[in-house]
């Protein structure tokens, strides 16, 4: 039994995988805090409010555990792990508010969050939920919040950068695994944010204070950190201040080419309805139960909503932050849709990052699914990104058992747009070339023309080699 590569920082315990499920070991050193956490009623309150994943204690003495094990827990399972650099603006904002709500509730029970990592938040369907049951420690009255810096780096700085500088800057979380350094955020934020009291203090002044104290003699710094005090009233006010700051951050969505794609299609409402019915029928025709369907190039999730009827979860990914934001807002309905919208650039998807390149898994390591939807995307991959069709087919075959894919011929108006400014070097990009390329890895089960277009919709099954 080995801890997952993402689980080594906190000595209170670790997460491991066993027989396809995820478990959490609580170490003996954390036994006291963990028992108090359970008996205080905080765990029950957080689970009842849907803020924290529930867990069951494993009572089987033969279950795998290490020598310093106190308890083994089986937490509520998260079907798909996503990372903050894949979330839209509102998803990161939800995760930030969730963290502060948990800290607020924890304080009422005499506890405090000992970390505020964005990686402690996951999405169950479209709802943010906290997954680290061991993040709670007894509150010592008069002490400042040890996770304040981490909260600012993981949530406040990226949110402010997305809102005021550029929404793509959430990608800074890829190069900085412990959140965006405040000195960097302070440099990148526009000057006007210095006149916003919350950002002026939590980011700009915070960055300067960090700089000042890192220059001070180490002994002096250690003494100051140890002596820093904060009455409980002040700590609560700090939480309210952070919550107001996060709540006031808004991102004005630009109207991008793809953001209003469904109002700007090359097919009529009737053809749209027929295409939806066709996708629905193809998914219905798959003779096995589907747990996860991935929708690559999902745009605002129109077809993800159809796929959602056929599986436990649709992971709905698109390169456009506007489309993903719209998709997430739509999915927030009550009850939340079983759709997880994520930002993903398929020509350069999320890499594996962190210690040993293993702490946060790559896109490919996480993309295994039962069925994959690839609608109106193939021309972007093959023409805009120059990926030959056999290479695309091979990648898809490695991640899914079933594939619903739309072939967009060169004569299609959307493909014509892509070819307008460049030489057509894609001699094999034809229906025949497409079918030959995909037949290497897939058997074609069904083909149907997409109404009022020259496009074709295929249902394919992976050939196991």
């Amino acid at each position, binding site marked *: 039994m080995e801890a997952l590569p993402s689980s080594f*920082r*906190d*000595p*209170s315990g670790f997460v491991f995988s066993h027989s396809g499920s995820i478990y959490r070991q609580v170490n003996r*050193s954390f036994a*006291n*805090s963990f028992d*108090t956490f359970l008996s205080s009623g905080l765990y029950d309150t957080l689970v009842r409010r849907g803020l924290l994943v529930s867990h069951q204690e494993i009572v089987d003495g033969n279950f795998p555990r290490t020598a310093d094990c106190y308890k083994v827990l089986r937490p509520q399972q998260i079907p798909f792990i996503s990372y903050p650099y894949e979330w839209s603006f*509102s998803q990161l*904002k939800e995760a930030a*508010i969730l963290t*502060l*709500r948990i800290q*607020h*509730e924890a304080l009422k029970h005499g506890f*405090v969050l*000992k*970390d505020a990592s964005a990686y402690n938040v996951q999405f169950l369907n479209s709802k943010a939920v906290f997954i680290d049951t061991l993040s709670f*420690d*007894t509150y*010592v009255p008069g002490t*400042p*919040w*040890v*996770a*304040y*810096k*981490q909260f600012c780096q993981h949530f406040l700085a990226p949110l402010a950068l997305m809102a005021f500088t550029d929404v793509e800057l959430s990608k800074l979380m890829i190069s900085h695994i412990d959140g965006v350094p405040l000195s960097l955020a302070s440099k990148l934020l526009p000057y006007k944010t210095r006149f916003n009291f919350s950002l002026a*203090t*939590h980011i700009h*002044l*915070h960055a*300067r*204070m*960090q*700089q*000042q*104290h*890192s220059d*001070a003699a180490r002994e002096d*710094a*250690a003494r*100051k*950190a140890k002596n*820093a*005090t*904060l*009455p409980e*009233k*002040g*700590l609560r*006010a*700090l*939480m*309210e*201040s952070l*919550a*107001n700051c996060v*709540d006031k951050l*808004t991102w004005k969505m630009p109207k991008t080419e793809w953001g209003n794609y469904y109002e700007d299609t090359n097919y009529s409402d009737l053809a749209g309805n027929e295409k939806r019915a066709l996708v629905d029928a193809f998914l219905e025709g798959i003779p096995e139960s589907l747990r996860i369907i991935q929708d690559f190039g999902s745009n605002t999730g129109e077809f993800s909503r159809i796929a959602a009827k056929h599986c436990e979860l649709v992971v709905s990914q698109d390169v456009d932050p506007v489309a993903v934001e719209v998709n997430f807002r739509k999915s927030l309905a009550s009850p939340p849709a079983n759709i997880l919208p994520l930002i993903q650039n398929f020509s350069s998807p999320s890499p594996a990052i962190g210690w040993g390149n293993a702490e946060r898994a790559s896109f490919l390591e996480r993309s295994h699914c039962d069925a994959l939807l690839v609608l109106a995307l193939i021309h972007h991959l093959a023409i805009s990104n120059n990926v030959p069709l056999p290479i695309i087919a091979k990648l898809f075959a490695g991640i899914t058992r079933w594939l619903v894919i739309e072939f967009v011929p060169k004569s299609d108006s959307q493909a014509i747009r892509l070819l307008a400014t460049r030489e057509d070097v894609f001699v094999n990009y034809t229906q025949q070339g497409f079918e030959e390329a995909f037949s290497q890895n897939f058997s074609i089960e069904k083909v149907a023309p997409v109404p009022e277009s020259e496009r074709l919709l295929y249902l394919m099954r992976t050939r196991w080699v």
Partner: protein
Amino acid sequence: MRTYYLLPIFLIMFSQQAAAYLDPGTGSMVLQGLIAAFAVVGFTIKSYWYKIRAVFGKTSPQSLLEENAEPREPE
């Protein structure tokens, strides 16, 4: 009976040991006191303002962090 009184002290000692696996950062620890002082003053003024509003029958908005806070609509 006497050891019973010592329990909270042990708990505090224990939790201080267990809490700090993160480096909280000296600047971050010191800054919190400063921001909190401003925030406490701000919230005190706000709470008086809400009390005045209440005299005229106006309700006060609830903290976003409370359980029954109104769900927020993204703008």
